[in-house]
């Protein structure tokens, strides 16, 4: 065909053959339509590209918005974190203020105790002293009723003196640090029993003192525990022709439990929860004197040692007080002993 066309061109220089002419037009048209297809393809490609671009753009926008969201979240988180750290700072500040307040109130309590001990005892001594002098120097000249009134003043002052001293002692316990050492409890009990000799005067009292353990404790405080428990036992056996007071130990899984048992008037177990409360008394003042501070003090001392105290009693059938002086390394045993105590 190429040679044909060359021939046609050569021939047209001289004369145009109409058939060749038509062929040429057809060829051009054909070329043109091919071009058109190519243009359309290009157009299509461009269109595709544009479409891709739009997609990319929207993806980019999404990424952008996601980034923005992230930034926003980050801001919120940061604000939250700042809030938390501000809260923390505020808490720390509140704690500091509370600690200062506690220290201040501790100092105040100390000053208060001091002034109770000094300023309250002084006028009490004066009332006691002068009413005593009045009764001694002018008593014989007074009517019996006046003498009785005077006697009540003296007695009232004495009670208040004991109460003030007991309360001060209880208040001091809170601030006091334990001075621990390993001590045998038998010498402590013997000392207390000896101190109580005068209170036993004219009474028939049988002391049964068993073998007691060696424990790590503050001996001067443990002495107070026995002083209170034994003088209670002595007091509440007063109506008995023969008082029997037994001090001994039981062992509960390696933890010694010390007990003080008496054959006194006892108490009803329904009031046992009041037993160790300050100012709680289970007997009338006329029957058995007391301030209601003793057992509260005992409990405070026992708890300071990490121990526990409880009682078993029956009305008119005597009472038994049990206590442990917990050793820190025997916490588990101690807990078991305490549980046994709860069951008891």
């Amino acid at each position, binding site marked *: 065909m190429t040679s044909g066309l060359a021939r046609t061109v050569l021939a047209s220089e001289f004369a145009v053959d109409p058939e060749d002419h038509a062929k040429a037009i057809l060829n051009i048209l054909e070329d043109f339509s091919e071009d058109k297809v190519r243009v359309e393809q290009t157009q299509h490609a461009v269109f595709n590209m544009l479409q891709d671009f739009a997609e990319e753009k929207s993806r980019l926008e999404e990424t952008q918005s996601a980034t923005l969201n992230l930034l926003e979240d980050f801001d919120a988180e940061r604000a939250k974190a700042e809030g938390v750290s501000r809260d923390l700072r505020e808490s720390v500040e509140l704690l500091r203020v509370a600690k200062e307040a506690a220290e201040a109130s501790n100092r105040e309590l100390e000053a208060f105790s*001091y002034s109770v001990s000094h300023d309250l005892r002084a006028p*009490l*001594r004066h009332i006691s*002293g002068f009413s005593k002098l009045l009764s001694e120097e002018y008593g014989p000249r007074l009517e019996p009723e006046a003498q009785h009134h005077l006697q009540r003043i*003296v007695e009232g*002052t004495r009670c208040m*003196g*004991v109460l003030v001293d007991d309360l001060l002692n209880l208040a001091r316990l809170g601030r006091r640090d334990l001075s621990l050492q390993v001590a045998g409890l038998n010498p402590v009990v013997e000392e207390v029993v000896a101190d109580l000799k005068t209170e036993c005067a004219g009474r028939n009292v049988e002391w049964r003192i068993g073998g007691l353990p060696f424990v790590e404790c503050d001996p001067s405080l443990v002495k107070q525990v026995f002083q209170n428990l034994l003088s209670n036992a002595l007091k509440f056996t007063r109506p008995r022709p023969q008082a029997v007071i037994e001090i001994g130990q039981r062992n509960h899984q390696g933890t010694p439990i010390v007990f003080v048992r008496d054959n006194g008037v006892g108490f009803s177990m329904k009031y046992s929860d009041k037993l160790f409360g300050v100012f709680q008394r289970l007997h009338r003042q006329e029957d058995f004197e007391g301030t209601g501070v003793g057992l509260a003090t005992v409990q405070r001392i026992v708890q300071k040692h990490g121990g526990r105290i409880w009682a078993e009693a029956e009305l008119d059938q005597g009472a038994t007080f049990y206590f442990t002086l917990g050793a820190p390394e025997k916490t588990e045993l101690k807990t078991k002993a305490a549980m046994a105590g709860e069951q008891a």
Partner: protein
Amino acid sequence: MTQRQVEILLVEDNQDDVELTLHALQKEKLANNIHVARDGEEALDFLFCNGIHADRSFERPRLILLDLKLPKVDGMEVLKRVKADARTKAIPVVILTSSKEERDLVTGYGLGANSYIQKPVDFDQFRDTVKNVGLYWLVINQPPVAELSQHSATAGS
């Protein structure tokens, strides 16, 4: 002017306590001549012959009964000055006070107090306490006589 030897210097600001203490001491006939100082400053003036006691010739009381809470100069300061001075440090000082504060006890003994006694509320007990203190320090206890008279001679001349 002759001056009778003061056996007891009672340093006490409260009039009621002064009366009750004197009553207890006199009842036991333990001291004939008791001087009462109503605050710490007066106690020091008396001991060292200053102020209102400037015309007194120096002489040691045999015993000082000292309250702690005192106007002007408190009891601890009086104790400190008494124990710091060679002329007075041998005088027994018995702190006789209302309070039984642990820190007072520690400070008192630290400064050289010879006894620390809390005044009992009950008057019978108070009387017994005062009697025992007087009996112990004025009758039973032996003061260092030679040392006392030597100081007395130098200070008094």
